[in-house]
């Protein structure tokens, strides 16, 4: 009988601890505690990287060279088209397609003295953040795989040491500074609304984006929240423009999934 009581009370006690620890506001608070600075103390990771840094530099240079080559390979057709813009055949099928869309209008055209919008063939604007993955240059993926393999070799030990510790302040600052420069904040946003877009990213070791997902996607279709779509698009553009992101050279496991919280309110209110 006593045993049962002890076990029961022990289980109850552990449940209380688990529940308390699971409360979201408590976990957030713990994240905000200053002692996080201790992450800065793990500078050893950076030191252990030093021997491997030249190797990575070489890889990065290789990729840069490859990218340069890609650009130069693409250049000739552009020049041809620039020289003879009229010589490019007009695909008749495509023209027909456009006409078809116009014919399918629900409202017949009315011609008035005033300028009127007679058709709105805006294509389905169902915002598909996942499609951004399809936009990523496949060549980058290939190069990313090479880096991935190398990176894994390099960071195997560190990953064990670092576990799930976040980015160091310097690492975070570098990434932030990069995205600050890429993000063109839409200036027409309302001041008194929630102007935060949360985007979850899956990254390659070289910082290129495998997948981006808007976490509050449902908000886009809510009435009166049109500005949110504009804001979300601007955030996605910023990520695309910054790609590859300036991620740390090591510890891929730590940051292969990142959440970026784009918040325009501070800038617009200021």
């Amino acid at each position, binding site marked *: 009988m006593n*045993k049962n009581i002890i*076990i029961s009370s*022990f289980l109850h006690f*552990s449940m209380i601890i*688990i529940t308390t*620890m699971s409360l979201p506001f408590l976990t957030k608070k713990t994240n905000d505690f200053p002692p996080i600075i201790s992450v800065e103390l793990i500078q050893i990771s950076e030191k252990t990287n030093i021997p491997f840094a030249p190797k990575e530099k070489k890889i990065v240079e290789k990729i840069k060279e490859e990218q340069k080559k890609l650009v130069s390979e*693409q250049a000739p057709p*552009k020049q041809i*088209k*620039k020289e003879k*813009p009229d010589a*490019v055949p*007009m695909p008749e099928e*495509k*023209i027909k397609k*456009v006409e078809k869309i*116009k014919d399918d209008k629900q409202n017949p*055209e009315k*011609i008035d003295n*005033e*300028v*009127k*919008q*007679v*058709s709105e063939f*805006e*294509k389905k604007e169902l915002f598909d953040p996942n*499609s*951004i993955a399809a*936009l990523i240059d496949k060549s980058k993926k290939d190069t990313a795989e090479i880096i991935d393999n190398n990176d894994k070799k390099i960071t195997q030990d560190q990953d064990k040491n670092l576990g799930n510790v976040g*980015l160091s302040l310097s690492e975070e600052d570098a990434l*932030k500074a990069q995205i600050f420069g*890429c*993000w*063109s*904040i*839409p*200036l*027409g*946003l309302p*001041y*008194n609304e929630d102007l935060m877009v949360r985007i979850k990213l899956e990254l390659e070791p070289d910082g290129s984006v495998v997948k981006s997902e808007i976490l509050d996607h449902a908000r886009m279709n809510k009435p009166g929240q*049109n500005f949110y779509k*504009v804001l979300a*698009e*601007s*955030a*996605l*553009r*910023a990520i695309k*423009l910054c790609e590859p992101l300036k991620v740390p050279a090591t510890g891929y496991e*730590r*940051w292969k*999934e*990142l959440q*970026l*919280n*784009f*918040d*325009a309110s501070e800038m617009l209110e200021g």
Partner: protein
Amino acid sequence: MKKYLKKISLILFFLFLPFKAFAFIEIDITRGNLDPFPVAVSPLSIDDNSKINFENILSIENIGSEISIIVENNLRASGIFNPLNKDAFLQAPEIAHLKPRFEDWNLIKAQALITGKITYDEGKLRVEFRLWDVLAGKEILALAFTTFPNNWRRVGHIISDKVYERLTGEKGYFDTRIIYVAEEGPKTQRVKKLAIMDQDGFNNKFLTLGNELVLTPRFNPTSQMVTYLSYFKNLPRVYLLDIATGTQEVVGDFPGMTFAPRFSPDGKKIIMSFAKDGQSDIYIMDLENRIVERITNHPSIDTSPSFSPDGKYITFNSDRSGYQQIYVMDSDGNNVKRISFGDGLYGTPVWSPRGDLIAFTKLHEGSFYIGVMRPDGSGERLLTENFYQEAPSWSPNGRILIFYRETKTDQEGDGFSAKLWSIDLTGYNERLIKTETDASDPSWSSLLSN
């Protein structure tokens, strides 16, 4: 006991597992750049037949290029966009309109691309345009318009508005008109006429002959009506003018001077000042039944009233505290609160169409400032300073202010010139609006098309 402990430790292990799964890193991005957004405005493509037809009708060599120039100028003037140099464009307009090669546009750092096509359609001008997100590689807007060829400039303005709205999240202000007082002649014998023009200064027309002095024209926010002050037979009275028909009428028969008129947000009432026996108070007249209601009753000068966009409040300036300051009250005249407390004199308050700010003119230590503050008086920001400037009027989206500025034209200060200027809320994008004559007292219309 050991058995239980094993079980408990197993349960605890599985319970704690999810904590690891949720531990991905969050980074707050709270800053961005406010540099103008790079956009490529490709000339609108046009087939040879249409080109010849429009050349005969409008005497314009290439209407496609001209419309794209209007769009480009509008976007540049907003200060928010940076239209890229067309010389750098790699793709022909007609091909770009069907399927842009995004790598090419990306190469010249364009983040958005505007393409279009013009056709001659049984005497009418048909314009279709598309807006492309270059980085995402997709079309984000596509519209078509049909109109008489003479309206081609408006087509350019409407395209600009649609692009502006799609990329900034708020309505544009390009397909609008500005009414103002055109001034000519020396200061002692100044001829003042009502004039109207597109917001970019084109299509200027005079609405009055200049026989009487006219002041403070204000647009009705819902129609093409204008209210203004005119000195007919040397008595200043508030008038109504229908721009479409040209008919004018006096607003009410007051036994004194009425001035500083402005429409209510629904366009059904006029709020104005009425002066008698050295006291000036604010009155509202219902335009349907012509009933006049007194709003303030104070032995001071209350003037320059302006409604909040929801019609619930009125801002005005008054010298009831001893100096001219800005006040806010309920639309029935109750709860009068002073909101300006800075140094100097404050006047001509105008409530923003967004409702978030009140623009004003401030006189301090011999300089005139155009500024904005929140309706509770907080967050005062002075946008521009000069020797003499006043009468701010909001663009319909509440982003730009237009006002007039007088400058001395010779060193003795005898000659002077009055011109219209605009400035955006950042205070950096200040622009002169070209007018045929000197100009003052501008008022911005609402969007002509929605």
